[in-house]
Structure formats: C-alpha cells, structure tokens
C-alpha cells in the first residue's frame, strides 16, 4: 500500500471539528482506503494538532493515527528526511515543513485548509484545497 494522501495540521483539526469539515476529511480517508492506499499523518502535524485540542479530541486524534489496521499511518521524521524537512523549515513552521516534505517524498497529495501557506514548497496540483 502506498501513501496517497497526507493530512496536515489544519486537516487534522478539521477532522475533529464536528461539522461538515469533519465529514470532508472522513470521506477522503475512506476513499483512499477503499482504493487500497493509505493516508499519512506527519508526526509533527499530529503533535501540533494534539496540543491545540481538548482531551476528548486528543483521544480521537490518537485513535485515528495509531489504530492497527486503520486508514492512516504516522509518518516519522527519519534521519534520511532531515535535510528535506530542514530546508523547508526555513520557510514554514515545522509541522507544515514535514507535511510538504512527506507530500513530495511519497508523491502524494496534501489535504489542507491552508493551501496558500505551502506556496513556497509545493505546486498547486500537489494540494487538495479542502
């Protein structure tokens, strides 16, 4: 299975929002999985979202990210990824830098509510504007 979609912090927060934004992200997750692929959650985005939400939503976030046999996989920052993330963190916050780096590494699509934030690192067609 390949990483076809990457969720950034804004998409993770939307998943927890409890409104139509949650549905948009949920349907994307389901679609990717039902095509036999995975959605990647950069660990820096997971941590950034985690620190912004209340405890009940923190539990949901971990359930989404850590569940065995689930639709997502946590993407770590590996030693081999350090240069790519470091180069991007000169222009972006760490969570966005990792999201951009993972999108390019996996030749995936970044799902975000903040597409303009990635203009320095990604092409428009690397991004699904939620």
């Amino acid at each position, binding site marked *: 299975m390949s990483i076809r979609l990457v969720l950034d912090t804004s998409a993770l927060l939307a998943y927890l929002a409890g409104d139509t934004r949650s549905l948009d992200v949920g349907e994307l997750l389901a679609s990717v999985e039902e095509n036999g692929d995975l959605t990647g959650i950069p660990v820096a985005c997971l941590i950034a979202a985690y620190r912004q939400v209340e405890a009940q939503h923190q539990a949901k976030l971990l359930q989404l990210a850590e569940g065995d046999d689930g639709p997502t996989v946590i993407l770590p920052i590996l030693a081999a990824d350090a240069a790519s993330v470091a180069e991007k963190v000169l222009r972006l916050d760490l969570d966005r830098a990792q999201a951009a780096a993972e999108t390019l590494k996996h030749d995936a699509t970044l799902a975000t509510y903040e597409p303009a934030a990635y203009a320095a690192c990604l*092409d428009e067609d690397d991004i699904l504007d939620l």
Partner: protein
Amino acid sequence: MTRKLSISLPDDVAEHLDQVDNASAYITEAIRMRRKREHTREMLAGHGIQVTDEGVAAAGERLRAVEERRRQRRVA
C-alpha cells in the same frame, strides 16, 4: 491455521473465481478489505462522522482530479 469451507456463490462470482490462480487467497483478500473498510467506517462513526457511499465517491473524484492535474503538468 486454515479451515476448509463449502460455500455457495452466484454463477457470475463462481465464474470469476474459476479464472483466478488462487481462489482461496482471492476471497481472503476480498474479505479482509471488506473488514478493513467496515472497521474504518465504524471508527469514523464513533467519532461522529457518518460517511456515505456517495460522499466517499465524490471525495475520490476530487482527489483524482488533483492527481490528474499533477500528471498533466509532468507530461507537459
């Protein structure tokens, strides 16, 4: 471990299985994919997200449209 089962299938499904190399592996994969899908939808429902087949299909179309634009850029 494995178990040997006798099951009844519609003709069209049986004819399809006649043409695959390993029907047991094929059926196992199909059932595991179905279970995974159900597990995900249960998790989403548990998080208050009730997805529909139509919504999932529409999300897939949006994603494919972005991927197609990327593919077109690369071949240009």
